[in-house]
């Protein structure tokens, strides 16, 4: 409760000072919109449906692309961890593509898939899967062999060992890889939406882009706030609970 109060007063004070500076003309309105202007944009665009609609389109791309990135990245990580040949070949490819900001795939994605959802999915997948793959690989390689030996003496074999021992042992690594993959995918998607016009739907990035073209900085700031909120919510709702579980169980520092 006390934390919420501190948070509330902090942001209230910040907004008040900002509003005051704009109203008094210290900050010119054309360069910095007042918080009241941002708020009225947020309210009107929420009521007319443009903002929720764009957010839904963006989130759909992110969630589906990320899920596909995970579904591809995890088994590839297992494969690379399991077979030396793939580690020295595919592992290197993954390392290279992880270093490449996935927005760089945009020209090829457009050429291959056109101005469609598929191009967006492709960029999100390229942003997330390599991180997840590499993290899975290093998680498995860092699993103490004694766990597998202990499991063997208890009669665990093959698939059972993989699902009940190796994957759980690698979980802390996999989760941090998933987090990194999520961050990469989210940033690349925003860049892609600002950079490319996709005819199948306008996401948050497109709104931001139009805000810029119309010089509607209240809209730009409003959308930026929505993007921040989505990022914060995913972290708090999706990753924080798993990370808390890992900290508690493994006894690692919070």
């Amino acid at each position, binding site marked *: 409760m006390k934390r919420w109060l501190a948070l509330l007063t902090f942001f209230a004070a910040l907004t008040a000072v900002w509003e005051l500076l704009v109203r008094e003309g210290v900050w010119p309105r054309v360069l910095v919109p007042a918080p009241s202007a941002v708020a009225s944009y947020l309210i009107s665009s929420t009521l007319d449906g443009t903002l929720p609609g764009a957010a839904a389109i963006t989130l759909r791309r992110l969630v589906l692309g990320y899920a596909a990135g995970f579904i591809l990245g995890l088994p590839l990580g297992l494969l690379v961890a399991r077979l030396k040949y793939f580690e020295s070949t595919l592992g290197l490819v993954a390392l290279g593509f992880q270093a490449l900001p996935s927005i760089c795939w945009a020209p090829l994605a457009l050429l291959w898939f056109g101005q469609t959802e598929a191009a967006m999915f492709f960029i999100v997948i390229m942003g997330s899967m390599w991180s997840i793959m590499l993290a899975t690989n290093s998680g498995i390689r860092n699993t103490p062999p004694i766990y597998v*030996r202990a499991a063997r*003496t*208890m009669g*665990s074999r093959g698939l059972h060992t993989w699902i009940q*021992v190796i994957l759980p042992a690698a979980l802390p690594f996999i989760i941090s890889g998933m987090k990194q993959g999520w961050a990469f995918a989210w940033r690349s998607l925003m860049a892609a939406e600002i950079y490319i016009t996709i005819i199948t739907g306008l996401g948050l990035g497109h709104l931001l882009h139009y805000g810029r073209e119309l010089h509607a900085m209240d809209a730009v700031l409003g959308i930026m706030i929505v993007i921040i909120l989505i990022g914060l919510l995913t972290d708090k709702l999706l990753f924080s609970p798993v990370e808390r579980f890992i900290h508690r169980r*493994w006894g690692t520092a919070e």
Partner: protein
Amino acid sequence: MKTPASDRSSTPAKLAVEGVSKTFHTSQGSVQALDNVNLHVRDGEFVCILGPSGCGKTTLLNIIAGLEMPDSGRVLADGTPVTDAGSDRMVMFQEPALFPWLNVIGNILFGLKLKPGLSEKERLETAEFYLHLVGLEKFMRVNIHELSGGMKQRVALARALAPNPVALLMDEPFGSLDALTREQLYGDLQAIWERRRQTIVFVTHNAREAACLGDRVVLFSPHPGRIRGRFEIDLPRPRDINSVELAGYSTTITRALKSHLKPGLVEVGE
């Protein structure tokens, strides 16, 4: 000193190691870890294998466990040749090797879940029984990292006992514990063994520990790893590791072991 042949008693062996040899090939050359080792362990017997580090005793334990295969010879468990690891021969390692993603009861249930023909309720009851046996019933839902070193090894002991193995194989399980905790565990292990009468093979480099726990102490020396002697420990149980009679045994055993070691290679604690 007895010969390997005289080791065969009239009762059938629970564990039989027959002519086992093993050589490791490394980049530094070959090391013969075991050379024609024969060992018969009776049902319910507590055998300690004593030797300095690097004498091949851990390798022998791994071969009995089925985690490694011998180059020649074979191991019989209850008359059946050992070809793989299995829950009839549970191992307690030097480190607890507990799974950090499971809590205490989850760790004990791991092996029980792999035993067919048990209901969920029976599994839980068995796990609770063994947790009680090692005195940790209050720590059922506790995470592994919250336990002390001694408690972790107790959980590992409960986990090893729970699937009711034919034999329990212990590889210096108390080596990393402090002296006080270790003494407590000597008492506990003896008490549990008196109750369950599990066949135990216990590897150690500590002569006093071997004399305290074993019905029989088997001497091992390296280069190549061979059995050099056998001692029956004829002392009443429970034994106190600090008793004078035990010190007498341990001195005799240490002297015998040292006579087989090359100078400069002695790493045996008394």
